[in-house]
């Protein structure tokens, strides 16, 4: 087992040896796997012994708000960022093969240079190190203690899921700067960020606490930028290196819509309460992103291990100031002290189920290829916390950061919530719900809860209604009463975050939830250049055998009627032409399973579910980037392929499925130099990145 977790033995090896079924499970034979499902009822849903709680009780610790990463002038970066990857040489540890290698892990050369680096020079730098677990001594929640359940900034925060739980070992959790709470980047349109991510993980691949990989690639989900900044699964980097990600933060359509930047709705908040107008389509404004690891075949392990953070994007529409009334600002719940980016009443929530071993250390079943489910509910990496609120409206940016679990959220008293965004995109109109739709892995729902309906002293909780028996799919959506009654065998059903109404706001709540938010882009004048069909299912073949870029497992993707293929990031499955629009139908060939499919690069619009627009619910009628297929379902979306180029990905975001091997590469490669058609595939080593020709180009790709 250790050899497997350390990469000395691959899943490919195990299948060849007949020790893994091609259906993807480690053969359930006596003595083979300690993690094969137990007959004990309380092994739902992990398949492993229940996580010990060491006597801690729910709602006995405050929820910590996200830790805001510092924004510094890009001039402070040393070395200064460069358009092409920095190839300055440094010694490579013997454990990684010795010799020398570049300090930056980004593939070299013009194809992987930051596109339009001179046109969108980075202004702000954000630096972080992916590191082993440690105590946080520089916590910055961005709000005073009164708005953070009494927790002061710069509190010393050990890496524990609860004060009464064991401290996580250095290799049990790997995360940004090695600390909790999860990290938050704040950015605004028109102010490009250079995110320098250092890999501070152990050079020794065996030092991983039983799961996780020390090579990483960081995907900004769902940034609209060049592929060199998208966290391509094969563009990973090694311990001791850094990778500069250039996030230009532009509206989609910068080359074709509002090119003279005359529309204030396509704008950025300035530091004086005004607007800087920008090119692009304001209908494509985005608000709530996250960023996470995307290492080929190890994404689930690394994300689960802690490589996940969030990114709030501010715009002239969604400014993060609820008082400025200029006819553009939507004045969503946020705050008023700063011209933009107030977090007072704008709260990020990262939901994730976890499990731990008998020593209380984070645990992951690396043999589970169906989907791994934890049995302990965390919010912002804390076990079932409480959060103090005032009697007014709050915005919650909710992220499902699990690897395989779906959630369905309600308030314990059934009160309505207002959903204002889906996948980080403000909807055309708010949707009032008492029970949110099941939120799939990587989906983000922004909601507004008005706590003014409660008196001081009241308590109301967020409740999860979706029960899992395992990681294959949701098994049952319970009623609020059933979930609260504790009848479910799934420990993650029921209350998981308790809101405590502690006081009246010091100043009147001037925030608004307008009846119109952001209408969808009008695509009627954008012709459809091509239609494609992608089917996600089991029984994948692997037609290539590249030892680096290809993988196989039970899961795959079928493109335009071809074979069901396991992932190979050297294979090009689709190549939309630059500047065009396509319609893609995503089909569930997996029968009763559910797959939340994510397409990188740009948001899409849902045209139909199961062949009919009438089947698209109100909360999906905006823009999205994660598309739930639902059992035996299909979904038809439309996307544009513009402004940038390079190689991108499409995959199931049940990240265990992604890793085994439900992922494909598509690319935009015809926008001219420096791009080649097709693009060569980067092959990363500690001594540098080389390139090879694609292993395969599907006949339907171009």
């Amino acid at each position: 087992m250790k050899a497997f977790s350390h990469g000395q033995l691959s899943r490919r090896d195990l299948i060849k040896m007949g020790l893994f079924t091609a259906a993807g499970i480690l053969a359930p034979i006596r003595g083979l796997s300690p993690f094969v499902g137990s007959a004990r009822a309380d092994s739902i849903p992990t398949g492993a012994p229940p996580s010990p709680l060491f006597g801690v009780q729910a709602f006995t610790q405050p929820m910590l708000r996200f830790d805001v990463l510092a924004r510094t002038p890009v001039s402070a970066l040393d070395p200064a960022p460069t358009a092409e990857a920095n190839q300055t040489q440094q010694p490579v540890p013997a454990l990684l093969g010795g010799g020398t290698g570049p300090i930056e892990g980004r593939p070299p050369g013009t194809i992987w240079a930051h596109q339009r680096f001179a046109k969108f020079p980075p202004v702000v730098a954000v630096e972080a190190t992916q590191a082993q677990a440690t105590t946080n001594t520089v916590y910055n929640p961005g709000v005073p203690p009164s708005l953070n359940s009494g927790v002061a900034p710069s509190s010393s925060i050990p890496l524990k899921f609860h004060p009464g739980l064991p401290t996580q070992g250095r290799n049990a959790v790997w995360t940004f700067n090695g600390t909790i709470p999860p990290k938050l980047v704040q950015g605004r349109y028109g102010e490009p960020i250079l995110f320098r991510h250092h890999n501070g993980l152990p050079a020794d691949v065996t030092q991983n606490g039983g799961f996780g990989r020390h090579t990483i690639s960081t995907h900004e989900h769902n940034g609209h930028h060049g592929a060199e900044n998208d966290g391509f699964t094969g563009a990973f980097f090694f311990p001791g290196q850094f990778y500069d990600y250039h996030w230009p933060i532009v509206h989609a359509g910068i080359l074709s819509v509002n090119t003279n930047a005359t529309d204030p709705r396509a704008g950025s908040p300035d530091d004086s309460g005004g607007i800087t107008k920008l090119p692009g389509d304001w209908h494509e404004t985005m608000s709530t992103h996250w960023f996470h690891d995307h290492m080929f075949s190890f994404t689930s392990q690394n994300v689960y291990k802690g490589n996940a953070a969030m990114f709030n994007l501010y715009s002239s529409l969604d400014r993060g100031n609820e008082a400025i009334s200029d006819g553009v600002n939507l004045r969503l719940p946020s705050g008023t002290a700063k011209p933009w980016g107030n977090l007072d009443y704008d709260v990020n929530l990262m939901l994730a189920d976890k499990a731990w071993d008998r020593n209380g250390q984070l645990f992951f079943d690396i043999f589970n290829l169906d989907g791994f489910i934890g049995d302990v509910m965390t919010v912002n990496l804390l076990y079932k916390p409480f959060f103090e609120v005032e009697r007014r409206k709050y915005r919650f940016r909710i992220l499902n950061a699990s690897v395989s679990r779906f959630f369905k959220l309600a308030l314990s008293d059934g009160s309505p919530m207002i959903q204002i965004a889906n996948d980080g995109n403000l909807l055309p109109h708010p949707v009032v719900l008492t029970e949110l739709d099941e939120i799939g892995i990587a989906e983000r729902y922004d909601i507004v809860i008005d706590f003014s309906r409660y008196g001081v002293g009241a308590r109301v909780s967020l409740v999860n209604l979706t029960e899992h028996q395992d990681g294959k799919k949701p098994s049952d959506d319970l009623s609020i009463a059933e979930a609260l009654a504790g009848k479910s065998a799934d420990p993650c059903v029921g209350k998981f975050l308790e809101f405590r109404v502690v006081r009246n706001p010091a100043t009147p709540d001037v925030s608004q939830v307008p009846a119109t938010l952001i209408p969808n882009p009008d695509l009627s004048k954008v012709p459809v250049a091509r239609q494609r069909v992608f089917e996600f299912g089991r029984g994948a073949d692997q037609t290539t055998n590249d030892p680096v870029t290809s993988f196989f497992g039970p899961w795959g993707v079928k493109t335009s009627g071809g074979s069901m293929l396991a992932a190979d990031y050297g294979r090009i499955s689709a190549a939309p032409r630059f500047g065009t629009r396509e319609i893609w139908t995503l089909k569930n060939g997996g029968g009763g399973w559910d797959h939340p499919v994510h397409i990188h690069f740009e948001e899409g619009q849902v045209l139909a579910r199961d062949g009919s627009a009438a089947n698209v619910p109100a909360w999906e009628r905006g823009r999205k980037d994660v598309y739930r297929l639902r059992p035996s379902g299909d979904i038809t979306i439309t996307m544009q392929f513009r402004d940038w180029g390079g190689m991108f990905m499409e995959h199931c975001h049940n990240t265990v499925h992604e890793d085994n091997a439900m992922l494909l590469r598509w690319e935009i490669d015809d926008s001219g130099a420096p791009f080649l058609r097709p693009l060569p595939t980067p092959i990363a080593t500690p001594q540098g990145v080389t390139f090879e020709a694609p292993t395969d180009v599907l006949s339907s790709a171009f």
Partner: protein
Amino acid sequence: MERNMMAPGTSSTAVSLLARALTGALVLAASSADAQSAVSSRASGVDGTLSAGAAVQVDPAAENVHCSGDLTINTKAVSDPSLPPGVVVSIDAGGLVCVGQGTRGRYVSDGQATLTRLLVASDVIKTTLAFHKNTPNGFLTARTALLTLSLTYDTTTGALTGATANLGDFLP
């Protein structure tokens, strides 16, 4: 990468040790999804009243609201050899006509829900829906109703054979 990142000097010892430890392995042929699905759609008449008393916390001026009309229920039962039979139930309350008993004003609901359920012969689903005045900002004082569905299925075919619905107050 698993395939090219063997630590320098690693022997095949780890591999052979594991191989000797793992005996009697089974190899099963990959199975494609032999899933089948059955789609059904029914309209169920609803006639219920939401009482003012259940909503005063949200809106002090709450009134009784009477709703009637047809609820659309779509089901897709999916059988899959690797999973227990399940059904996706989609509800659309958009066809309901809801009128305030005091003001005679219209109330509306975004009124859609999609639920995952196990396929059983008889299933009672309790879910909540939000209703609000049909005014520009009415959604800010939405109230909660409890929808109780009684569904029956032919568990052999997955077809929905019967559906009744009741609408009333949600009392936490």
